[in-house]
């Protein structure tokens, strides 16, 4: 779970960076979903 949290945090930072660059908002659930997909990949 700690590893998942570290991946989730890293993915969150990346998503926020892209989202702010595109000036859109990502829901927390979307970030969590991208993190889960990334972890599984």
């Amino acid at each position, binding site marked *: 779970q700690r590893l998942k949290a570290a991946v989730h945090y890293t993915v969150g930072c990346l998503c926020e960076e892209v989202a702010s660059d595109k000036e859109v908002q990502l829901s927390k659930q979307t970030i969590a*979903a991208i993190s889960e997909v990334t972890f599984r990949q």
Partner: protein
Amino acid sequence: KDWFLSEEEFKLWNRLYRLRDSDEIKEITLPQVQFLSFQNEDNGLTQEPTTGIHQLSLSEWRLWQDHPFPTYQVDHSDRCHHFISIMQMIEGMRHEEGECSYELEIKPYLQMEDVS
């Protein structure tokens, strides 16, 4: 120093990204891959939908998969274009009744000695 989140990072994660029990969706899961031809033991574990756990669906939007979605830095792979063309074919056959256009089109080329 190691892979753990630092105290600071943990606070940020906890505030910005962590899904809470109070959230409508408190956990996201991916569907378990099942190869039906390998009936291994854990295939039995069909996941019961549980409240608050959202299982990402790869089929909910299947009707949308008959065209390529826009890409950014990574183009669509050949197998993705193949998937899209199959979804287009399925879409084309969806409303057929009885006769199958694919069969009517391909049948004239069938030579029985090729298959006997």
